[in-house]
């Protein structure tokens, strides 16, 4: 927003494409000294891409980049760093095996004239900086021994106290507890008083409204609007993010969708008070046969951990699981599979064997059923062929290496491996992520068929559309806790975002 002063950073008409897909289209962006600038938008809206351009991560783009009124081009993150720009990325990037002090001073450790690290000075200064930030840890502890939230705070502290005059924070609060968020905000405000400019990206719109002076909304690679935080509201921002009355598909989701009245059959899975470190707190729910339970939440809300617990890959710190009324403690994923639980994880790398043929990928989870000791390749191929036909996997060649299939077809193979002997409970993580409309529809239809067959299905996603298009009942997870359940009532994308 024009503040009568020239912005210290100004970007004009920025366009950036990745392999033919435009992530940013003609975006203008200006940042003033002593300003906290909030950025909101859905996954893939272009926020992070723009920030990575500013931080020198993506040197290739078209448009004008002006720092202090002078046209500039960063060739690398080093250039950006030298110009006083620091960024905390979404993914934790710390050195867990180094000490806290070394992490705080990563890349610019204080040295004496001989070039030797001044350990005592480094530890003292790191301690001082962290305590200013309200963190009270021994600077000589190994960072990896601290909880994730604290590690994230220390990473943020490193950038905040690096002397950078432009600081970019990408989703800094996802793993932080409420008091930690307060401390972060207090520090951000103090830095603002000192004249530092801060860009703050978050899914938590309340956070953005509380701490920022200006908010910019992105949608589909475009800047939609820029307003003073004081003059807008959560509702207005969500509306701008998802584009009311915009494209037809999005439109349908901002309308109210009526969830069916409480239905479903018997309870297949009962989770009671599941807890896992800082990721999950007292999560309880039931999954019923013939019903799709949607679990929605932002990245880092604990969904992934929840799915891993259900499939025996992670052991909860507390809480119990019961399948068909019998209490279960899964010692391995094999135990979960035998109890009738199936999981399709969110990453294709983790769910499939790319260098093996399609039929081996489909038969792997059911080999126990079709062969006692010796393999039966003929049966395996026949089963695979049936699945390939039913799910319309292309090309329909079961002997082809899986890596040669397109992403959407790989996703179907990942589903197919559980369908010959259907499980009691099917857990799907991000089942339609990165798929085009046709493949998405296929997957949605497959899931509905399975529901009709009486499976209990849990769909976990960070995309509201996915949950809305599949679920009969929706849980909203926020920072590891269930904050809202939608059942037998109207729900819309706005309401989901509002709850999360």
């Amino acid at each position, binding site marked *: 927003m024009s503040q009568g002063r020239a912005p210290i950073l100004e970007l004009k008409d920025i366009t950036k494409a990745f392999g033919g897909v435009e992530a940013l289209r003609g975006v203008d962006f200006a940042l003033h000294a002593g300003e906290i600038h909030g950025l909101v938008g859905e996954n893939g809206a272009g926020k992070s891409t723009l920030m990575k351009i500013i931080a020198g991560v993506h040197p290739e783009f078209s448009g004008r980049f002006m720092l202090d009124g002078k046209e500039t081009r960063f060739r690398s993150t080093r250039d950006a760093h030298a110009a006083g720009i620091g960024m905390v990325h979404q993914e934790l990037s710390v050195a867990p095996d180094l000490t806290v002090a070394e992490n705080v001073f990563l890349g610019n450790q204080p040295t004496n004239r001989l070039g030797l690290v001044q350990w005592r000075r480094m530890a003292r200064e790191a301690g001082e900086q962290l305590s200013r930030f309200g963190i009270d840890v021994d600077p000589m502890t190994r960072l990896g021994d601290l909880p994730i939230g604290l590690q994230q705070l220390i990473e943020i502290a490193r950038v905040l106290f690096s002397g950078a005059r432009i600081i970019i924070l990408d989703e800094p609060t996802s793993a932080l507890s409420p008091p930690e968020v307060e401390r972060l905000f207090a520090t951000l405000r103090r830095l603002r008083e000192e004249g530092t400019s801060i860009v703050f990206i978050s899914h938590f719109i309340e956070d953005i409204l509380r701490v920022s002076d200006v908010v910019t909304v992105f949608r589909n690679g475009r800047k939609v609007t820029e307003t003073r935080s004081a003059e807008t509201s959560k509702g207005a921002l969500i509306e701008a993010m998802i584009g009311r009355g915009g494209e037809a598909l999005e439109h349908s989701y901002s309308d109210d969708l009526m969830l069916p009245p409480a239905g479903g059959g018997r309870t297949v899975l009962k989770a009671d008070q599941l807890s896992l470190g800082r990721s999950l707190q007292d999560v309880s729910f039931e999954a019923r046969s013939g019903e799709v339970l949607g679990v929605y939440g932002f990245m880092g809300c604990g969904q992934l951990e929840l799915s891993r617990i259900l499939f025996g890959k992670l052991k909860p710190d507390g809480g119990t699981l019961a399948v068909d009324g019998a209490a279960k403690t899964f010692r391995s*994923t094999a135990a979960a599979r*035998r109890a009738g639980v199936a999981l399709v994880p969110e990453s294709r*790398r983790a769910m499939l064997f*790319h*260098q*093996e043929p399609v039929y081996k990928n489909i038969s792997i989870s059911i080999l126990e059923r079709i062969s006692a000791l010796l*393999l039966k390749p003929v049966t395996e191929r026949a089963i695979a062929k049936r699945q390939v036909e039913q799910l319309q996997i292309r090309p329909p060649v079961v002997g082809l290496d899986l890596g040669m299939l*397109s992403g959407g077809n790989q996703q*179907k193979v990942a589903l197919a491996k559980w369908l010959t002997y259907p499980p009691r409970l099917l857990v799907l993580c991000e089942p339609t992520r990165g798929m085009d409309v046709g493949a998405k529809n296929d997957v949605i239809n497959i899931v509905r068929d399975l529901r009709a067959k009486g499976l209990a299905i849990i769909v976990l996603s960070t995309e509201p559309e996915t949950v809305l298009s599949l679920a009969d009942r929706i849980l909203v997870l926020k920072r590891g806790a269930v904050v809202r359940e939608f059942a037998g009532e109207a729900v819309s994308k706005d309401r989901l975002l509002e709850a999360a």
Partner: protein
Amino acid sequence: MTSSDSAASPADHKRPRGLAPFLRSQMRNIAPFLTLILLSGFFAIASPSFATLDNVGNILTQVSVTGIIAVGLTFVILCAEIDLSIASIANVTGIAVAYFTVQESYVNIANVPMPGWAAILLALALCALLGLVNALGLTVIGIPSFIMTLAMMQIAAGVSAMLVRGQIAYKVPPLITTLGSGSIGGIPWIVIVAAVMLLGGHLVLTYTRFGRYVYMVGGNREAAEFAGLNVKLILGAVMVISAVCSGIGGMLGVAHFGSAQQNEFDTYLLDSIAAVVVGGTSLFGGRGGIGNTIVGLFVLGVLNNGLDHVNIDSFLKILIRGLILLAALIINVYAQRLREKAVD
């Protein structure tokens, strides 16, 4: 169901055909075979005594103990793990079977003689137990196999030392003597045992459910776990298989050499690993098999034997073996990359 994106996507149908991509994807199988042919050709020309029926018999006998040990090691490497304790376990099992056998009066070992069958069973139980310790360390405690088996290498050597205390034992049960040093119809029993074990290993890996699991766990451990396989059980099993194969190799080796003593299997660690890897089994797991190991065994066998037939400085031989191993490792890593490219 509506028709999907995939039907329209031409990329799906682009399966690489033609000779070049096929050869590239088969590089790990072709390269060792070519090496074998080239080496054999070279020695056949360089030395008149190399390409004789007698010498082929020699080579077969020379690679037998390595072959028996390499069967189990193939399972381990297919799972993308390593077992450095194979030679030590072979040694301690060989010593154990002698320890439980009546020795001549001049052998100064406080041994515990028992019937032959009991000695053999106890020795087998010992190597299985050591393999189980490897398995538990790897899967339950989570020690990387490289370190776990390094420790076991020392432990097994320690047990060996305690049993023989620097002495040498000579007698082993009659069955072991026959299998290790006897022959039938002109064919040494040890070659037959090696062949049977290699065949058995091949059958297990190719035609059983367990064999499939080994390949899947090696190919993508995370996906195997997400498919609901008991990855730890499979990893544990291959460590035990490896130790038992080593133990059998050790017992027959002792009979073959005619004595049981400390450090007598030291060269077999490198030879066995080399045989598996030179044969083209991927160090990253999931690719290769007993067929590859057999080719690798012959490459090493021909190399070791052939170098004895040509007039070469015996110290230079060590260097040459090292260089050949390095070349094989380079091919192994490249083969993996080429295959990944062919698939993606």
